């Protein structure tokens, strides 16, 4: 029987929870509330702790800022292209890894290596591949020239060239984790289901669609959700490829925009940063909710 908020035994429970509550409260809940408040305070100055008034002006400013709109567009393109592609390619590679016999361990290691590779090393590789320097035009351009095409400046050139590099980079970086998850998901499907299907003369395509896919769908769904969230939060990869002045390069992302508003060369606007952060939060929340709704119908658990 529970009478009050604090029961005898509850006290102990709350005591155990206290450290976590304090940390989460100070570093998660409080900042969240604070950002929400800042986003409505016009012209907030963090040094002087002053502001002019309260209202939706910050949101209006951000939504009319072409840099923000560009960042939203970039982020959405990145999400829409990389999440399905990386998940699909990872699924194909996992299927391959699952079905080969010899050298399985070796290939699994090779495909997982990027996960433990230093970001700087990856950046270097991409520079060799794509960047124009005094000495070379990058390996990809060499290839293009080989086939008789004209060089493309992938780092400082046209928008779609840059977006292409960003997408390739993102896909390549998120792939190993997805392969790891999917190979273990495939391995956990009971062999008997396949035997049963074989006895009934099921084609391998149908086995994949009707058995394998539904069986591993919870894991695919997990990868899609985390993939969406991860791609919406893209920032460091973009900086690694295109430098810090992302607005000028036209390659900013939403997180990049928030960062720039706070600390960038044109920064010092915590109010704008806050309202754009809230906007990002709303977008991610909406997308995740849609994902969950779809999954309820489609995912076998």
């Amino acid at each position, binding site marked *: 029987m529970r009478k009050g908020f604090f029961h005898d035994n509850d006290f102990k429970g709350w005591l155990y929870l206290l450290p976590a509550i304090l940390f989460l409260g100070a570093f998660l809940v409080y900042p969240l509330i604070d950002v929400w408040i800042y986003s409505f305070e016009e012209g907030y100055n963090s040094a002087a702790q002053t502001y002019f008034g309260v209202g939706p002006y910050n949101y209006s400013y951000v939504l009319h800022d072409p840099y923000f709109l560009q960042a939203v567009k970039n982020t959405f393109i990145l999400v829409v292209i990389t999440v399905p592609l990386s998940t699909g390619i990872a699924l194909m590679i996992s299927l391959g890894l699952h079905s080969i016999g010899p050298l399985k361990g070796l290939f699994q290691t090779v495909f997982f290596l990027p996960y433990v590779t230093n970001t700087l090393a990856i950046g270097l590789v991409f520079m060799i591949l794509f960047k124009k320097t005094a000495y070379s035009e990058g390996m990809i351009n060499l290839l293009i020239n080989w086939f008789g095409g004209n060089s493309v400046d992938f780092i400082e050139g046209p928008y779609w060239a840059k977006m292409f590099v960003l997408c390739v980079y993102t896909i390549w970086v998120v792939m190993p984790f997805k392969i790891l998850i999917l190979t273990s998901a495939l391995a956990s499907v*009971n062999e*008997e*289901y396949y*035997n*049963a*299907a*074989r*006895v*009934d*003369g*099921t*084609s391998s395509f*149908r086995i994949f669609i*009707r*058995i394998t896919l*539904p*069986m591993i769908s919870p894991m695919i769904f997990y990868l899609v959700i985390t993939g969406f969230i991860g791609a919406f939060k893209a920032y460091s990869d973009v900086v690694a490829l295109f430098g810090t002045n992302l607005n000028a390069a036209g390659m900013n992302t939403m997180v990049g925009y928030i960062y720039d508003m706070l600390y960038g060369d044109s920064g010092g606007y915590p109010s704008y940063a806050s309202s754009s952060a809230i906007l990002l939060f709303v977008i991610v929340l909406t997308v995740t909710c849609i994902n969950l709704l779809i999954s309820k119908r489609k995912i*076998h658990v």
Partner: protein
Amino acid sequence: MKVVLENLTKIFPGRGRKARGEVTAVGDFSYEFPDGKLIGLLGPSGCGKSTTLHLISGLQKPTGGRIFFGDEDVTELPPEKRGIGLVFQNYALYPHLTVEQNILFPLQNFKGKDKLSRTRMLEMAEEAAKLVQIEELMDRRPGELSGGQQQRVAIARALVKMPRVLLLDEPLSNLDARLRLQTREEIRRIQRETGITTIFVTHDQEEAMSISDQIVVMKEGIVQQTGRPQEVYDDPVNLFVAKFLGTPPINVFVGHVQGSRLYIGADAVLGVTGVPDGEVYVGVRPEGFVPCGDGPFACDLRGIEVMGRDTSLVLSNEVSLNPVIRAIVGGETPVNEDMQTVRFELKSGKVFLFDQETEKRMYFEGSRL
């Protein structure tokens, strides 16, 4: 459809650094499974009975020998071309599909001219469901069914294509005792109704004896004996088969034959002709003991278990290989719990002699002493 095995052999290669050579899972198996019968493949675990089933299904390729369905050689055919229905030990029902979708699954695989119309498929699924009595479960998922119901769904899925041969891998092992009794009758009934040659694998001799038309007893990849359950029980060819069949199990003693007399310990129990003098194993079925005041064979009485119709005597004897001896005697037995020792006559038809070296059966003419 009769199923004929000719010198069927399956050898698994040794594996790893400590490979201890090859393992013969099935060795030189020749047998004709008669048409339209229920046949039990029986043996302790690891005896190759499941491998035999997988070889017949085509999921595994034999190392040697041939398999015929009727007159057709199916040895090289893949499983889907053999026209078999296979029920897996853990049923392997697709958990994300409903019962109906599970049963429809094999039918939806037909392509080209064999392709069935939607209504025809539903009809066939309905028919199969009716046969195993699960019509009212069609919209459920396997996770919402009991073990026995899942078993029925698995059988319906295997039967829906009207296979030439139905194979069941340990069909009852995942069920509790009560359900097991019920389900084995069910399997018997379904087999009778469809007339499909059915081969099932089990390690439970009672299960095999109770429903099979024929049983095949295997040990370490080698077929020991085949025949009707009662024949095999009454006439085992070796000590292994004698010990494997029957509950309670056969009582085995160390004995010897001297001058046409069979001795168990010091007691001369039976007159035997046709057996050379020497050490033998003596197997006596529990129902082979007849309590008799001046009988030749004495055992110490440990206890009496009354089981309604029959009475089971728990006995001991120093030359017995079993820890206890069990004798089943009629309800009106002169034995009571105050007795220290009980004397028996042995029914010679229930006494088997086995060579101590080869454990092969030694046949004899028995007579009372």
